[in-house]
């Protein structure tokens, strides 16, 4: 079995006239936490959707566990997705189902387990994210952080080979953030799977990542371990990792000289 779980080669993808990916290539290992980082609007979430087969690239290949995602039939794609977990930014919980039923949903859909076994598994998964006591609550009664933890419990319900996290830390208070960071790290170690985190939250993401890719303008502009990136000589990588306000990504949006705008010319 190859150590590479996801192999992306020469990926091109556009939305309308805007090129999102322009020849992106990267490998994601079968185990460990891989972070995909970059400024807002660089297509990080789009990349997850391409890996999950929800979008089709204009050119290039995406292989997951040796399978070319674009060449799969609907049934084959669904079979592959059963081995993937995805945590959406909003949680994407089904709002008409309780927390318990949300976690039980993939089990009911894809297994023939009896009710007592489903209950057993759901409570274990909820316990893993610390929300066993919230099993009877409805999604509307949860905070943002709790929603994501429930979604995480749902994502691991079928014991997937990989979990994709779409901006898991956005909009979280420090406590929720700490809980999520610890959970992602611990779950990855305990389940020994591949975790892909898409985020632009540098310190927290780097703290739990084994490997990092930084993407911008449709390409990989930096990669390596967190320590390597922190010491990177690349001006762009340095600006992103350290959050400098000016650098290769300028502070000012391209414009005419200010005097021309103020006094006309």
């Amino acid at each position, binding site marked *: 079995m190859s150590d590479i779980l996801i192999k992306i080669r020469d990926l091109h993808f556009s939305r309308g006239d805007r090129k999102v990916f322009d020849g992106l290539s990267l490998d994601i290992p079968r185990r460990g936490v891989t972070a995909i980082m970059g400024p807002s609007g660089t297509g990080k979430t789009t990349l997850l959707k391409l890996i999950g087969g*929800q979008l089709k690239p204009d050119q290039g290949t995406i292989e997951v566990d040796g399978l070319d995602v674009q060449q799969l039939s609907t049934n084959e794609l669904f079979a592959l997705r059963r081995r*993937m977990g995805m945590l959406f930014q909003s949680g994407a919980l*089904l709002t008409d189902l309780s927390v318990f039923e949300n976690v039980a949903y*993939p089990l009911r*859909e894809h297994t023939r387990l009896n009710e007592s076994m489903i209950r057993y598994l759901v409570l274990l998964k909820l316990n893993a994210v610390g929300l066993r006591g919230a099993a009877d609550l409805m999604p509307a009664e949860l905070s943002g952080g709790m929603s994501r933890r429930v*979604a995480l419990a*749902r994502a691991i319900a079928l014991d997937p080979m990989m979990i994709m996290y779409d901006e898991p830390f956005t909009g979280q208070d420090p406590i929720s953030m700490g809980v999520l960071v610890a959970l992602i790290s611990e779950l990855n170690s305990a389940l020994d799977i591949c975790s892909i985190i898409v985020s632009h939250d540098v310190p927290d993401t780097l703290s739990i990542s084994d490997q990092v890719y930084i993407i911008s303008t449709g390409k990989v502009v930096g990669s390596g371990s967190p320590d390597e990136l922190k010491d990177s000589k690349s001006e762009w990588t340095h600006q992103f990792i350290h959050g400098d306000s000016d650098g290769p990504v300028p502070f000012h949006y391209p414009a005419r000289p200010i005097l021309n705008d103020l006094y006309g010319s």
Partner: protein
Amino acid sequence: MLNRLLNKFQHLGAITLHSFRRLGRGFLFLLEVLASCGSMFVRPSLLIKQLYSVGVQTLIIIVVAGLFVGMVMALQSYYALVDFGAEDSVGVMVALSLLRELGPVVTALLFAGRAGSALTAEIGLMKATEQLSGMEMMAVNPMQRIVAPRFLAGVISMPLLATIFSAVGVFGAYIVAVELLGLDSGAFWSQSQDKVDLYMDIYNGIIKSIVFGIVVAWIAVFEGYDCMPTSEGLGQATTRTVVHSSLAILFLDFVLTALMFTK
């Protein structure tokens, strides 16, 4: 001047292309929905839940509207017919109007406003909150679990609601004509029984309501599924559901009436 004219033509062309593209997408969507309807045999509970939400919860507005439409029609018919001494025909006139036209049409219009817009909003909101994407990533087909049950529930509910509308309307007409205006009860019912034809009037009315059910449910679920996942997009989609459904109902009613009731 020429440029402005060309721009107008270009704009018209763009709108036409967009409309046809959307129509094409809508037809492909309908085929996909129809192909997904078989899953209801595996999970009938999904359909039953939607029948309650789409059908049963629309019942009150249908019953109330049917009652008043029947009562108003009885009053108007009576005032028109009494001049010719034909007021005993109030029952048959109301029954035929309801069964052939008003039952299916008004029910469909009310259904589009009450259930159609709710279906669009619900599916659109599920899209905006990534619930549909989430299902796809859980290897669950939202066409089978979300769209097909709602579509089928609309198609099944419509003829039932239209039948109830017509029945309640006739009852409302009876209250006005017989109980308030003092017409003969025997004449009211016997003329209705004599003149209303099972095939020509009742079956045709049911066929109409089935067609309206398919069209309204299709538009409602498509608009929800195809909407921009923003609050503005959702608002526009629900408005489009009501407007497009209403226009489609009125247009199809004319076509079906022309086909069904030729002499």
